[in-house]
């Protein structure tokens, strides 16, 4: 088998990742630094269909839907990022603690995981969002606090299996502390799996933020967000203003698909032998 070309599968996948990441980062930073007047109210431009000036058309208040989508998606990404950070830290700490200490700690962590996974995710999100005062804070806290269980399980399984390996037993016998073992043996081993889990957590967080917002328990109406835009568009679909739902929906879908793509591709790159398992 010859593969001398630079344009091999590995390069293609890398390029794919770079493109996807560029798009997502582009949206993220554009939205972060966009001037609010760009998606402000302009009553003279009410309900315009998509055109060169307004790529995605305008809504009933004459706001440019394209800029609103960018800002909205960017807001979603910020929440997704926060949620991923919190979830990953929680998952890492709980997963490792559970595997290393075992016994009571393990049972407690498992109980927490089962408790979180036992409730329908959306219901849990709405409950926490309401408890935390709804709005931006509510939905961020809710999304951040509900995405750790699956990652925790992965980390725990990984570490559990490591715990009885020769070199871990050896370092234990040599009198190394739990912390040293965790940092030098466990973390480096778990890291790749963990990072991929982290990236794959993003689309969940974004989708959940959008759904909770759509249902009216999340981001407030005055904040640009895909969930808000979709909820507003419900009243206009029946009168034929298709662009208000279609484009924002596609933007959300694209973002989610791209994150999934990055995650899955990274998995292939870091683990090229997975096909032989």
């Amino acid at each position, binding site marked *: 088998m010859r593969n001398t070309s630079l344009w091999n599968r590995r390069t293609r996948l890398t390029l794919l990742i770079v493109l996807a990441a560029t798009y997502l980062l582009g949206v993220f930073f554009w939205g972060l630094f966009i001037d609010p007047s760009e998606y402000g109210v302009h009553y003279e431009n009410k309900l315009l269909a998509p055109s060169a000036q307004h790529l995605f058309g305008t809504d009933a208040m004459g706001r440019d839907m394209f800029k609103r989508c960018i800002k909205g998606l960017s807001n979603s990404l910020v929440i997704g990022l926060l949620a991923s950070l919190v979830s990953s830290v929680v998952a890492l700490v709980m997963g490792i603690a559970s595997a290393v200490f075992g016994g009571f700690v393990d049972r407690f962590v498992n109980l927490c995981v089962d408790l979180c996974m036992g409730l329908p995710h959306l219901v849990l999100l709405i409950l926490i969002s309401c408890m935390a005062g709804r709005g931006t804070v509510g939905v961020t806290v809710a999304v951040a606090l509900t995405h750790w269980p699956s990652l925790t399980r992965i980390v725990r399984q990984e570490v559990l299996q490591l715990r009885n390996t020769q*070199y871990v037993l050896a370092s234990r016998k040599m009198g190394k502390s739990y912390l040293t073992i965790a940092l030098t043996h466990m973390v480096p081993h778990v890291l*790749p799996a963990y990072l*991929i889990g982290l990236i794959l957590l993003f689309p969940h967080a974004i*989708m959940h933020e959008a759904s909770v917002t759509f249902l009216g328990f999340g981001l*407030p109406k*005055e904040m640009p967000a895909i969930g808000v835009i979709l909820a507003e568009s419900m*009243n206009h679909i*029946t009168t034929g203003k298709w662009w208000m739902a279609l484009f924002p929906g596609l933007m959300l879908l694209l973002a989610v698909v791209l994150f999934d793509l990055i995650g899955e591709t990274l*998995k292939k790159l870091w683990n090229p032998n997975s096909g032989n398992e």
Partner: protein
Amino acid sequence: MKSKSISLVLGIILAFSMVGCGQKAATESTEAQSQAEDTQKVESQTGSADSTVETADDAESINVYIGGSIFDSSMDPVKGFMSYGYPFVNEALIQADTNSEYVADLATDWEVSEDALTYTFNLREGVTFSDGTPFTAEDVVFTYEEVQKNQANNENVDLTKLKSVEADGDYKVVFTLNECYSPFLDTVAMLQIVPSDSYNSETFDTAPIGTGAYKVAQYDTNQQIILQINESYWGGTPDIEQVNIISMDQDTAYSNAVSGQLDVVMVGSTYINETIDSMTLHKLETMDVRNVSLPTLTEQVMKDSQGNEYNVGNNVTSDIAVRKALSIGINRQEIIDNAFNGEGKPAVNFTDNLPWASTDDYEDNQVDEAKKILEDAGWTDADGDGIREKGDLKCSFDLIAPGNDEDRYKLATALAENAKNLGIEINVRNESWDVAVVEENTTPIVWGWGQFSPTVIYSTYDSEMFLEAQYANVTGYTNADCDAAIEKAFAASNQADANAAWKEAQAIGDSEYPYLYLVNIEHSYFVKDNLDISESTQIPHPHGHGSPIICNLKDWVLN
């Protein structure tokens, strides 16, 4: 070393495969979950649509969508159902006519004693409830005493001023008051009579028995209420045999109307420029105004009569210059055009179709005058950002558009845009009512008021109401002259004096602009062309999110 690296590689392989499985499973389950939700939603929507189809076969029945508020509360008059004045199952002794004057309903006539402490009503004879029992004075006495006993369940009909109610024979009732209370007739019009023999506070929640033109034939919680003609109605037989009041989402209702399944559909301003085949848009007059409370106190902590502490006041709106500049400087018509597609009329106080409401009018859109007022008060834009400031204080405040009311949010946004011309920044926030009431004394809120009773003046302007009840005088407005005028209105022994005093109270209050009145809204409905909703007998619609159109259901004719 070698075995270590092998185990590491193996570990990583295992890790990847596990991440793969775990994540995939999770993705799938969420997808399935959201799919299940979607189908459920579709089902519930088609469910209500199906019920529409079922009943639409009958030519003598109509399907109406009049918003959801009718499904929110108990149908029991004793608990305050339809106290805004458009009942259809139970009837009150008197009712308001198209000029907001009271005319006979279950009473034939009434008289008020010289000292205004005794109200005597002669009752209509030969009226029976839909269960066949005759209507007599005993039922009236029963109803009023029942409400008095359970006053806590009925916040709308306040009978605390009523000392006693007595039957004088079968067809005369005498009410005695503790003290002069000129809005007592409004109270009488609010409370519909229930039968003393068959009243049951549980079954009446969904199946009240009354003397009205229609009776409840079927009640499906949050789905539909089916009304059928009350055969024994005293006022003649209505034309339409069956009315199905259907609960659905606004957008679903609209698409059902487009497909011809609804005969009347209430629509928000979003839809008023649309056309539906064989349906015509009717815009009906209301007494419903939208205003913004502008707290008149500076920020501080105050106590109510129970000693509870509240944060009150707003440092920007407490300056009368800001309140006045807004009131005269904004362009109400432009706000209405922008927010509501032109639906509604500019308003600077309560509506003229109420006999007690102030008729004082003033020009708005006086931008230069408003700017001058602001500048004289020290509000200037020194840093050139388009927003005025006074010292360190920016001329900027939050405005809450409460609840799930798209129209109030649109109105607030249009106001904020308009206020920019004056150099005032308004940040619109959409909050649920439970958040809004917590902030009601500090943050301006978009309110909706529309009722026959002038007691709204007492609750929105009187200083003794501040902090004592929800929604009451949230601006903290305090003026002894205004309080005195309100007291005079309550104590008046005839309607003319009372109305004059109410107007005086409003004149005093409005001169300090505690409320920024914006619009007298209109209710819009698409009505089938073969259905006559008898617009000439429609009363000005009280507050009610679209449901008051059924006020004259008995006059509707299906051709």
